[in-house]
């Protein structure tokens, strides 16, 4: 477990170094994610060894964004002023994204003959 956490931190560090070093606007941990994914493709045995740690960490993902969410207390004035606009944007775009994604998936599956569930 400690070894797996060390691996995760090392890939995050690699990602942060690349992101900051090259001035990229992609977050360092996302670059770390990509680099670890490529490493898992090259070393499939590593995936099985890391599964428990990854599952454990991701099972409590929602806890991890509580502190940032509490930051809303610093934006109460903004929500009082623009709450309706933000709500319209969030609800409207979420509905549209679901509709477009499901439509694109179903149509492409029909065109490529990848129909039928497993």
């Amino acid at each position, binding site marked *: 477990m400690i070894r797996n956490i060390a691996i995760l931190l090392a890939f995050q560090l690699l990602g942060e170094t690349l992101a900051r070093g090259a001035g990229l606007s992609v977050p360092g941990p996302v670059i770390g994610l990509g680099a670890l994914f490529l490493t898992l493709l090259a070393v499939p045995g590593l995936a099985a060894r890391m599964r428990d740690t990854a599952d454990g960490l991701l099972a409590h993902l929602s806890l991890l964004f*509580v502190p940032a969410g509490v930051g809303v207390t610093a934006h109460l004035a903004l929500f009082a002023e623009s709450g309706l606009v933000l709500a319209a*944007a969030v609800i409207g775009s979420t509905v549209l994204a679901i509709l477009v994604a499901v439509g694109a998936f179903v149509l492409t599956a029909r065109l490529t003959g990848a129909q039928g569930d497993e």
Partner: protein
Amino acid sequence: MNDPFRLWSYLAQEPLLWLTVTLAAYVIADWTSDRLGRHPVANPVLIAILIIAAVLGVSDTRFETYFEGAQFVHFMLGPATVAMAVPLHANLGRVKRVLAPMAVALVAGSLTAILSALGIAYALGLRGEALVSLAPKSATAPVALGVSEAIGGEPTLTAVLVILTGITGAIVATPLLNALRIKDWRARGFAVGLAAHGIGTAHAFRVNSTAGAFSGIGMGLNALLTAFLAPLVVTLLL
């Protein structure tokens, strides 16, 4: 330390107090959500935020002081993002069979999520930091926060928008897709995960296990794509 005010002023400055409050609030919120049958509106993150915000309000504590303690939890977002590579790799076999539909749905859905959020808010008069903070809101929280920071948004605002997006997706997905008579669970799950990340995925798993698995894939792939598209869109359009 007999003076309760001196004791309080000591504790209030230490990370221990706010770290404990964060975990305790989450435990209470998770229990409450469970008792309410995991209804999408009874989201544990939302409940935990309300509890902590109330505690901060009553004790007249600034967010910065709170975050001194809570940052230890916040820090784990980075390693958790990297860890998403593991389930993504595990689902590789299922991905290969519907590669084309997923690729098209991913690009179309991801662009729609970013552009429509910015478009609606801009049309209604929103500008500046608040507008930029909307761009990555369909991506899973750790990625969305990182993107928001990188493009000049306000990460704490993005965090709240991400949670509200997830709750919206979990509430509207099933009635919306039933009304459209979409029966392909892969398409349904993928779209929900793409648009409403982890909260949508948790909902998808409760509806159908295939939908849940594809929702997880949609969430992971959109996290990657949003990290590239949101900065690009914001640079080109705003």
